[in-house]
């Protein structure tokens, strides 16, 4: 099946268009959204299986040979990310049934989600740098809709800033691509890699590398470009926040990892050194933010920033342990951030506030919520055998191999800060004297718990079943480690 790798992009796109015709029929919308995502999930699982069996899959649109047509490439790294994306979106959609509210569902909420997934999966799959810009725009425009949907005062105020930041970074992306094109004369990512290797990465290419770091750093929220993230992400309702927190920043991280392992691999002491320093600063800035707030949303949002730093620090090591650790941690983080946002969404629903100081004693009334929160919190901090441990272990191991001991120490210390920040939520919300809760029904609570429990169990399985996942992860990090696998697969014909 030659078109297999397009299915995870096209199926959500198709269903998003179909959903536009059923504005008033909410039940039908929900069913169609779930069916579409299940179909896409089946396709992506089969894709991951095929990539495992037959190696990197490629397709050139319109059958133009590789450097001229637009290429779509699915290696193990992108196949895993696509699969994780679709699993997460499926759970977010199920979680939204009870939590998003009918008013938003009427205004193309599910369509916007599916359009966004089209963009995210496209950005993960594309093998053409300009095409990546186009898919970035697809996901950004859908995210503009999602962030402003509902039209609350605060949402409008924050969306303006979010959109402005992204428009400026998109313009920078176009400029960077223009510079890259004028130097190497091609847009195909594999071909760019070959051409840069031929000319040996002169200074101008290093400048482009830094520009790319700025562009993707704005999307992926690295230090000092993360300033827009806490305000903008706190504005939309929880399911949208979960989707953004789990997926959008990770697309930026993916793009940095892809370009920094495929293009700019000849003067690593400057480019990757810069990336490493920024990653460490990102971790420190995130830690400060995570401890500074008494707001549930802000604490978890700053944990996104920390995770971005950890993943990029692993990627900057450029050795086997560091890169496979980064892949492990990237997927772990997508799952665990989704789970945490789901959980704090339920806490906010139950208590009616997102201020830690106004809640307490939930353990007596909502014990299962407390236990699952505790598991997710330990998973986030990386307590073995939960997920997060293995990724961080490999990243630290990679840093020791590359003699960046100070960085590993900061990463290990940041684990403690992460644990402190999320356990603080546990202590404030679940321990202490029970506060009087606003009257809420039990039914939505139970309905929201179902996808949450599934996701938490998935993260636990991801940690416990590490052994079983290792061959997939090794394939993923091998492609990053040896660009020749990717290049040969694209340019072979």
């Amino acid at each position, binding site marked *: 099946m030659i078109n297999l790798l397009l299915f995870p992009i096209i199926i959500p796109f198709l269903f998003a268009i179909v959903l536009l015709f059923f504005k008033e029929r909410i039940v039908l919308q929900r069913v169609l959204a779930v069916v579409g995502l299940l179909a896409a999930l089946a396709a992506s699982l089969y894709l991951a299986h095929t990539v495992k069996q037959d190696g990197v899959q490629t397709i050139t649109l319109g059958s133009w040979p590789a450097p001229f047509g637009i290429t779509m490439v699915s290696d193990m790294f992108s196949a895993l990310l696509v699969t994780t994306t679709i699993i997460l979106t499926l759970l977010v959609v199920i979680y939204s049934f009870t939590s998003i509210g009918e008013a938003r569902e009427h205004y193309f909420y599910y369509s916007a989600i599916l359009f966004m997934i089209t963009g995210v999966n496209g950005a993960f799959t594309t093998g053409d740098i*300009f095409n990546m*810009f*186009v898919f970035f*725009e697809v996901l950004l*425009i859908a995210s*503009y809709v999602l962030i*402003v949907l509902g*039209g609350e*005062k*605060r949402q*409008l*105020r924050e*969306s*303006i800033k979010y*959109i*402005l930041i992204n*428009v*400026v970074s*998109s*313009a920078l992306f*176009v*400029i960077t*691509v*223009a*510079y890259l*094109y*004028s130097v190497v004369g091609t*847009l195909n990512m594999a071909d760019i890699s070959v051409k840069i290797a031929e000319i040996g990465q002169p200074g101008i290419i290093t400048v482009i590398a830094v520009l790319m770091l700025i562009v993707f750093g704005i999307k992926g929220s690295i230090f000092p470009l993360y300033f827009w993230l*806490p*305000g903008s992400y*706190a504005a939309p309702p929880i399911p949208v926040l979960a989707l953004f927190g789990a997926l959008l920043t990770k697309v930026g991280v993916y793009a940095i990892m892809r370009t920094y392992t495929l293009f700019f691999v000849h003067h690593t002491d400057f480019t990757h050194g810069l990336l490493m320093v920024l990653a460490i600063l990102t971790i420190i800035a995130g830690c400060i933010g995570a401890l500074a*707030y008494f*707001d549930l*949303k*802000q604490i978890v949002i700053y944990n996104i920033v920390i995770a971005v730093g950890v993943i990029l620090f692993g990627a900057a090591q450029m050795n086997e342990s560091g890169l496979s650790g980064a892949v492990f941690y990237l997927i772990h983080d997508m799952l665990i951030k989704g789970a945490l946002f789901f959980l704090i969404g339920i806490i906010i629903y139950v208590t009616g506030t997102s201020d830690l100081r106004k809640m307490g004693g939930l353990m007596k009334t909502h014990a299962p919520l407390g236990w699952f929160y505790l598991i997710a919190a330990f998973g986030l901090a990386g307590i073995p055998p939960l997920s997060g441990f293995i990724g961080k272990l490999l990243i630290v191991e990679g840093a020791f191999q590359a003699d960046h001991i100070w960085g590993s120490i900061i990463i290990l210390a940041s684990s403690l800060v992460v644990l402190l920040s999320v356990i603080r939520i546990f202590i404030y919300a679940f321990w202490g004297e029970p506060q009087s809760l606003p009257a809420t029904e039990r039914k939505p609570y139970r309905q929201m718990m179902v996808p949450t429990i599934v996701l938490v169990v998935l993260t636990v399985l991801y940690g416990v079943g590490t052994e079983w996942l290792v061959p997939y992860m090794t394939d993923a990090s091998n492609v990053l480690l040896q660009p020749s696998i990717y290049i040969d697969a694209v340019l072979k014909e």
Partner: protein
Amino acid sequence: MELLMAILIGILFTAAVYLILSRSLLKIILGTGLLSHGAHLLILTMGGLGGSSPPVLDKGASNFADPLPQALILTAIVISFGVTAFMLVLAYRTYGEHKTDNMNLMRGNDEHD
């Protein structure tokens, strides 16, 4: 010609930055418009200017302009049109809700909403 284009792009970027840093929402949106125009002209310049014969039709044509940057600009222009239109509508809605288009009055974070 390249020099002229470079100066023009520089002027566009300067004006864009000046407008984006202003307080009025409408001026900011006009600034992003200029920014994307500058970026599009930059693609055109970076692909190399000049060339008189069509690139595909004539066999053995040597003096032709690179068609790829023009395809890229076409894509980028459509995207920036869409986003600008969206931003204008959003600015109008924000103005209706907040009763101001002054970005200084639209500050705020979670602690004081």
